[in-house]
């Protein structure tokens, strides 16, 4: 599975983007996603594209590796494009049988495809250059103010980092159980779909039992080490902004302002043409 898609994976190398404070990357990703919906003309998309290209060049992640991540959404993209292409009403461009492609439809489909593509590349830039650990730290810090509204920010980020720690352990365990059940005559390779689904039961039940037992043990171990929630807790590796991070925020702000300007100016250009 890990081979097929690169979405959400960390690409280990040393680059300016890798060293960046994870909070900058997290906020940057949000801003970039919002900017894709602020921008509504092709000049804007060129700007976003250039911005993204500069990011990729600075991250030292091979472009081919990033594109591989797009494979997972090809199907989703096709559906979106086809729907937009045929279902948008407006000035007809081509029509055959019962289907009509409108000028607006073509325009909309193109924009949608670009948006989706940039969205996926943009967010995978974050996961490719940030370790899951840094990401949970950043989330705890960025969403910290939500504590005022009783959102358990610390608990959520602790849960995420524990989940990440146990993924390899549980994967290994699944493997062991699978082999043990095969040794007892379980058939996991049947071509019959129903049989195959049913064969998951002897795999999942022991896995769940073991996961609960582990959770119980872990909770006790955490309590024994004085864990009592986020209150009064200090950090071994606190997040600290450096000069480069401040510069990154400035660049980000400049990019966003430019996006807004292009939208305003772009619509005026359209208005002039319309008149």
């Amino acid at each position, binding site marked *: 599975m890990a081979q097929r898609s690169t979405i959400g994976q960390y690409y280990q190398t040393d680059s300016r983007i890798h060293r960046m404070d994870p909070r900058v990357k997290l906020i940057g990703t949000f801003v970039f996603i919002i900017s894709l919906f602020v921008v509504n003309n092709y000049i804007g998309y060129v700007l976003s594209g250039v911005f993204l290209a500069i990011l990729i060049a600075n991250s030292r992640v091979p472009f081919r590796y990033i594109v591989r991540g797009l494979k997972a959404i090809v199907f989703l993209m096709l559906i979106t494009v086809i729907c937009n292409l045929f279902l948008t009403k407006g000035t007809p461009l081509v029509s055959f049988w019962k289907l009509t492609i409108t000028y607006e439809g073509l325009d909309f489909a193109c924009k949608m495809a670009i948006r989706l593509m940039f969205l996926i590349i943009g967010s995978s830039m974050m996961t490719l250059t940030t370790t*899951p*650990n840094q990401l949970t730290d950043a989330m705890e810090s960025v969403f910290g103010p939500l504590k005022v509204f009783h959102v358990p920010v610390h608990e959520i980020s602790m849960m995420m*980092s*524990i989940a*990440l*720690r146990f993924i*390899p*352990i549980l994967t290994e365990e699944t493997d062991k159980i699978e082999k043990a059940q095969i040794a007892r005559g379980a058939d996991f390779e049947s071509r019959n779909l129903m049989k195959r689904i049913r064969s998951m039961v002897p795999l999942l039940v022991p896995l769940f039992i073991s996961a609960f037992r*582990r959770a119980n*043990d*872990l909770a*006790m*171990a*955490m*309590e*024994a*080490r*004085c*864990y*009592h929630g986020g209150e*009064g*807790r*200090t*950090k*071994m*590796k*606190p997040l600290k902004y450096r000069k480069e991070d401040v510069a990154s925020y400035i660049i980000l702000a400049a990019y966003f302002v430019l996006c807004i300007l292009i939208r305003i100016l772009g619509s005026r250009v359209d208005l002039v043409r319309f008149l």
Partner: protein
Amino acid sequence: MGIAKMIQTLHLTHDYEVQDEEGNITDRVRAIDDVSLDVVRGSFIAVLGHNGSGKSTLAKHLNALLYPTEGQVLVDGMDTLDDSQLWNIRQEAGMVFQNPDNQIIGQVVEEDVGFGPENLGVPTDEIWNRVNEALEAVEMTAFRKKSPNRLSGGQKQRVSIAGVIAMRPKCIILDEPTAMLDPSGRAEVIRTARKLNENEGITIILITHYMEEAIYADHIFVMDRGKVAMQGTPREVFSRVDEMKALHLDVPQVTLLAHELRQKGLDIPEGILTGEELGLALTGQKEALAAAMKQGKITSWDFR
């Protein structure tokens, strides 16, 4: 130093409640039955017992993870029932559990060791000092940047011990830390525990069912059906081979061999604990043997 007793239990009794599906209590199982024992500060204690003898339940009382049904547990003079002292008790009496995977929280070795001090609210610089010292004490400094998943069982348990040391405890309770390890991993863990006891003066309470690990202790408690069935120095306890067998417990292999030879008529005293001692007994070097056996504690490092 204050009180000479690190840990004291007074008529400690613990019942587990058996609940039916609706959560009504249908039965009570007595896991610990009127146990009173003292642990001297700086000593190395072993608690032996077969499965279900109550030794793990006892361990969880010493760290305030379980509370007495009756009686009292005092850790460094603090009552475990006193909620205001809860975090002090857990800081002073650290605990290492059986399964190495289920007690490591961090995704990197050094972050896991820092977990305890983080919870205690120790300032960042001080956390780094403590982590460095703790990793040094268990000889895991070379692995500090590694993922715990890549370590062997013995190494993982040493990381767990480091995680406890970083909290600067006065006492470490090891609840069957070697049960899931291979022989070399077991040796690593026991060596680390003995070193901490000798060099840092940390009180060690080792709960185990491997008799060979208990011979290094200053004092042994043998648990059976929730009670302390036997206690004394390793030599005293292991010289009572027949009583141990009646409790379904073994004695170290060397001790057993010496015992059997003695029954066949050889002139060997009871309570032989090491191969070296048996060698002295068999070659008739009585004076050297008497001198070796007079020493209360086994100090040789031939654990295998």
